[in-house]
């Protein structure tokens, strides 16, 4: 029976080619536009570390100006000072923890012909690697003691390893970074994070760094500040040490807390810590500490761009117009077939039969629209790539989930659109239709 309905559907579609093309195109345009914007939004709001995003918490403490909050909505500042970074690390109150900062430096390759180049560097503690499940190609992260002892060790990215060592196992070899010799202890595998959640201050869709280095190198080698540096009062005195002692924020802190118990304990610890600092004359504002898990932090930092959201809503309205269009056209079409339907009813087809028959016709149009729409979505994403350039590279890929949901969306919406016209068509009284013949 299904095959017969399918044949009838194709016949009916062929009978009004212009109308059918119009319907398929309308659905395709609506689906294409929606899928394009949904994909961008879906990738922007993706969970970059799904298996433990609930256990990783970003630490915020309010060390800001007594007269003027760090933000208009009384949120604590989005980064912490060197003092907090080192104090909280020394306290070791979480299951795992890492303060971090970004910096940059020149790498000087061994060979005389190789040109020195600038590399992005992340300063972190040894927990950084197990906490964020960084994939290792060779070796591993450094030992906790190596970080504390300020050993000159680094973990490098896969790309850096390929550039410096042609991709071979470089663990134990030496590289020259920021004018010093460092021993390679680990090489990361490809590590793409969308968004790069652990530090979104300079842009959530930056790539992971090329070199990872123990945090205290910041002090040891007086490394420059990457990212944003904000101060509510100027450092007291001159020099690098004064900056580190100051109330300037340039550091981030993540902790891993395995359950709500640990989280409550850590929160207590933070509150106690701030109270102690208040006794020392710091933290002039009311206690306002926050622990946000990965997705809460992404939400807080508004990682999904406003424009992307606006476009998504516009495209949904676009789809709505396309569907209304389809409903209207189907209605007109099925009404036009009234006499045929009357005839079929008279020779014995039940209402259910007719309903199914027309549903099949609608679904055929829906699938055609969906497939065509998918092609348009692909074009749409290519278009976004040309318009926005390389920094949306990771945000415009169509994956299997998206392809499947595009087709599902097309079929569901076209069947929904076809429901009312089909129902109307089946309720035609056969006698009247036959009489007018």
């Amino acid at each position, binding site marked *: 029976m299904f095959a017969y309905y399918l044949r009838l559907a194709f016949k009916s579609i062929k009978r009004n080619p212009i109308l059918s093309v119009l319907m398929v195109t309308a659905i395709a345009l609506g689906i294409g536009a929606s899928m394009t914007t949904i994909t961008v939004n879906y990738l922007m709001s993706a969970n970059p570390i799904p298996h433990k995003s609930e256990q990783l918490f970003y630490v915020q403490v309010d060390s800001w100006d007594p007269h003027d909050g760090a933000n208009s909505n009384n949120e604590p500042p989005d980064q912490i000072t060197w003092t907090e970074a080192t104090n909280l690390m020394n306290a070791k109150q979480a299951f795992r923890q890492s303060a971090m900062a970004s910096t940059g430096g020149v790498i000087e390759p061994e060979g005389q012909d190789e040109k020195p180049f600038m590399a992005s560097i992340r300063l972190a503690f040894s927990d950084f690697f197990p906490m964020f499940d960084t994939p290792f190609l060779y070796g591993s992260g450094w030992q906790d003691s190596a970080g504390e002892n300020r050993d000159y060790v680094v973990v490098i990215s896969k790309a850096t390893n390929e550039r410096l060592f042609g991709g071979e196992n470089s663990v134990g070899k030496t590289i020259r970074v920021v004018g010093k010799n460092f021993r390679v202890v680990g090489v990361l595998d490809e590590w793409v994070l969308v968004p790069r959640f652990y530090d979104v201050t300079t842009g959530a869709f930056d790539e992971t760094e090329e070199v990872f280095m123990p945090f205290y190198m910041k002090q040891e080698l007086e490394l420059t500040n990457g990212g944003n540096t904000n101060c509510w009062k100027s450092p007291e005195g001159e020099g690098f040490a004064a900056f580190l002692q100051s109330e300037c924020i340039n550091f981030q802190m993540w902790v891993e807390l395995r359950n709500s118990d640990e989280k409550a304990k850590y929160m207590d610890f933070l509150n106690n810590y701030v109270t102690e600092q208040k006794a020392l004359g710091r933290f002039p504002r009311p206690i306002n500490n926050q622990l946000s898990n990965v997705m809460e932090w992404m939400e807080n930092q508004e990682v999904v761009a406003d424009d992307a959201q606006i476009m998504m809503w516009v495209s949904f309205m676009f789809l709505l117009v396309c569907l*209304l269009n389809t409903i209207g056209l189907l209605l007109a079409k099925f009404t036009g077939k009234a006499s045929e339907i009357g005839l079929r009813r008279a020779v014995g087809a039940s209402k259910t039969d007719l309903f199914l028959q027309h549903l099949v016709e609608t679904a055929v149009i829906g699938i055609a629209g969906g497939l065509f729409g998918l092609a348009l979505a692909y074009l749409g994403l290519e278009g976004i790539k040309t*318009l926005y350039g390389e920094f949306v590279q990771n945000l415009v890929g169509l994956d299997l989930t998206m392809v499947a949901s595009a087709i599902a969306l097309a079929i569901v919406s076209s069947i929904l659109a076809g429901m009312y016209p089909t129902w109307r068509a089946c309720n035609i009284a056969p006698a009247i239709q036959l009489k007018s013949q």
Partner: protein
Amino acid sequence: MTQWEIGPIFRALMRNKVGAVLIAIQIAVTMTIVVNSIFIIIERAELMDRTSGIDEDNSFYLTTTGFGENFDAKSTAVTDLEMIRNTPGVIDAIQINAIPTSGGGWSMSFQVEAGEDKPDEGAAVYMVDEHGVNTLDLEVIAGQNFDLSDIRWREGNSRDWPDTALVTKAFAESMFPDIPWQDTVGKTIYIGPTEPVIIKGIVDKIQAPWVRWEDVEHVVLTPEITEFSSTRYFIRTEAGQRDTLMPLIEEALASSNKQRIIRGLRSVEETRERSYRGDAAMIKILSTTMVVLTIVTGLGIVGLASFSVNRRKKQIGTRRALGASQGAIVRYFMVENFLISTVGVILGAVATIGLNMLLVNMFSLNALDWYFVPAGMLVLWVVGQIAVFGPAKKAAGIPPAMATRTI
């Protein structure tokens, strides 16, 4: 009134409501999107139309990063600047800490009165020497430019500031709203609570690095050259020389000193394009959406009207046989569409304002100017009339003899 047959048309519509309602909703949603899109497009276009105040077409910059123990930032800067300034085709060059419109830079807060907890205002700081005004294509409209004796060296970790500064007219007016901007020359302002700086001159206009900042023309120039290992050179060339000079100067710098790397060579034009790329993209995407949507709606009207004409062939033939002119038939469909559109655009006006309020709340967009709504209504009315004209014309062509035929 009777001539337009609004009564009968309306009653006929009420007998087949669904089709009309669908068209009306389509028109309403289309209008909502079109009007809000146009509004966003105009706003973005205005944003992009602002000029940065510098010679955008003929300027470029690069970053030089020194490394190794033997690198001497001071002598490198002096030698480099002399070499660049003496290159034929270069109008002038400076070392600078940040680039207008690039998105990254320094800002400091300034106050008129010294002391903690006094009102302050933020401004972008560009560190330049006495060539700054010429290189950035600025004009000193009051007071004086820096001279050589004002310029100092800034060490890597230095936290203090020079004694003088140039400020933009916009910043002078904002700091001293009660006196004419010309009179702010010689006044003292404070960086942070206590560090005094005397305004030496006023420059016409230069933008801060952050194009989305509401106070984008709040800029202060300070007379200093930095001794940082990593700094930028900003170079202004004679018209048409930029693209030739860019690789030449990059190469000359790279080969003159092996203790550093040259990177980030980029024209100001490209920087500007990058900063506004999101806006340009938004404009293109919304324009396309708008046009396609209007076409879809138009075609929908054409499709439905054609069907309604086909179904009413016999009725139209009868009317023609009874003496209705072709014009009367065309008018019938035009008026019918006008009635539907009217309902649509009224719904559309409400939805347009609703969506705009939502956008204002959720994405802090600006509120729509009122005249966008009637303009949008007018456009959708016209679209409806154009779309229905073809089918109506076809209907008018139905011969009166049709009345006598079955089907």
